[in-house]
């Protein structure tokens, strides 16, 4: 080591200092519109990816148990909020590529949502059952909504939490069979509207992109529960009642997800429960149009953003396959076998590519959605969820 003496060297040293003390990602200024994260469920880490060159930029570690983790983004697309299974809520800065803050807010949680104005994060918890609300800036607690139901003070696990227009969050109570709307216009005093007897074991929920319709999938019976948020006074309506036609259900080796559910033109595609089918509904009347027999128990059915294709993955032990359905003919036009353990699919915002996590192969693959060719791949440790920042600008994601 020699002492830095010459002016040129001094300048160099100062430059180096500027680069290292500045953010890792700030060497070049960039936007966040083509960024995203990949959850590494077992390692408790997250990779930051970019979808233009299709590379991984960095890895952030120490986020706890990320099995079943999901994420939402701040409205500027800079921060990701990651909801861990162990109740951890982590705020990541995608530009400096750092963990900004992490709080352990519950014992066991399942997901979350960000409010319309971006100021609040809501987390749905299994243990203790309920929803907790935090300030997005500081992650300081703002409100607690225990999911108490019945007369003996029991708490229900909460699922299917989404944001809705008008400072509202909507969610379902798995054990209670209820749907609740929390109005958080006064963030520390949420006003709750409850809908009881919506059906047995709602296991997940979705909200339409216009923020009008909330739908909960039911595990305990064949059907869906639908709430029109423009007319909540009309109550919860049952959709596709008895769609199983009384036939015995097939065993379900992984719960389907409604998040990332597919709307294509005037049709909605949803995974059936306990049958190897996609349910096709009319997007206006919500009546059944048909069903599409598929490879296995569908887990995610996601529409390409233009609505022309729906991509579907499947539960164990058939989770090595992805099927692609043409939404006009309702035919399966392609099947891919990315590898064992296909966990999640995420389209780039305009739909030219789709990112697919292949857990058992420790890879995330990128496919061209026209040619179905694999055009890229990154290494990842047991990857599960993939979340791109375009979600920041969409209701319910």
């Amino acid at each position, binding site marked *: 080591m020699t002492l830095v003496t010459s002016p040129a060297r001094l300048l160099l040293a100062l430059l180096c200092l500027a680069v290292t003390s500045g953010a890792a990602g700030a060497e070049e200024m960039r936007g966040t519109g083509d960024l995203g994260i990949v959850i590494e*469920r077992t390692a408790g880490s997250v990779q930051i990816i970019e979808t233009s060159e299709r590379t991984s930029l960095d890895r952030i570690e120490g986020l706890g148990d990320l099995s*079943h983790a999901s994420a939402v983004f701040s409205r500027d697309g800079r921060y990701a909020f990651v909801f861990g*299974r*162990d109740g951890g809520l982590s705020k990541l800065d995608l530009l400096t590529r750092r963990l900004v803050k992490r709080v352990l807010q519950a014992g066991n949680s399942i997901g979350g949502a960000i409010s319309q104005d971006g100021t609040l994060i809501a987390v749905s918890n299994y243990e203790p059952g309920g929803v907790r609300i935090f300030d997005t800036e500081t992650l300081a607690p703002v409100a607690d909504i225990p999911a108490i139901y019945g007369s003996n003070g029991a708490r229900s*696990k909460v699922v299917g939490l989404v944001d809705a227009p008008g400072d509202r969050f909507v969610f379902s109570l*798995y054990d209670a069979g209820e749907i609740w709307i929390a109005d958080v216009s006064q963030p520390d005093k949420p006003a709750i509207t409850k809908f009881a007897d919506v059906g047995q074991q709602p*296991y997940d929920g979705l909200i339409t992109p216009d923020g009008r319709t909330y739908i909960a999938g039911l595990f305990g019976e064949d059907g869906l529960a639908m709430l029109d948020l423009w007319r909540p006074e009309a109550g919860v309506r049952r959709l596709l009642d008895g769609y199983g036609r009384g036939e015995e259900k097939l*065993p*379900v080796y992984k719960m389907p997800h409604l998040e990332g559910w597919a709307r294509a033109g005037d049709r909605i595609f949803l995974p059936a429960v306990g049958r190897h089918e996609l349910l096709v509904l009319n997007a206006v009347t919500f009546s059944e149009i048909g069903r599409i027999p598929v490879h296995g128990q569908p887990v995610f059915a996601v529409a390409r953003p233009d609505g022309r294709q729906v991509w579907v993955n499947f539960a164990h032990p058939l989770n090595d396959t992805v099927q692609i359905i043409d939404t006009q003919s309702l035919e399966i036009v392609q099947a891919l076998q990315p590898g064992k*353990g296909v966990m999640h699919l995420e389209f780039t915002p305009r739909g030219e590519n789709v990112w697919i996590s292949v857990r058992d192969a420790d890879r995330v693959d990128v496919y061209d959605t026209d040619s179905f060719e694999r055009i890229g791949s990154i290494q990842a440790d047991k990857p599960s969820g993939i979340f791109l920042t375009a979600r920041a600008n969409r209701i319910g994601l």
Partner: protein
Amino acid sequence: MLAAALILTASTASAAPLGSERQAALLYLLRQDCGSCHGSTMGGGLAPPLLPQSLAETPDDALIAAILDGRPGTPMPPWRFEINPNEAAWMVRQLKGGLAE
């Protein structure tokens, strides 16, 4: 040696020790696929925890039956198509002893 080992396996077929590869595969299944409902550290999710303290009171047979045949009327599915009784018994022992981190 080999012959003796073969006889031994044949006579105790149902309780034969599992090969290390199969053990690893079952542990992977537990964490990843059972984990999707029970939590990857068995701490619970939509399904109840499978931790030593949560299972201690329940007889092995009931737990083995739950794994092989599922619990009808609940999301717990039957696993007999890929797990045999001997393997289910081994899994219950692992769960009751606590999975290593």
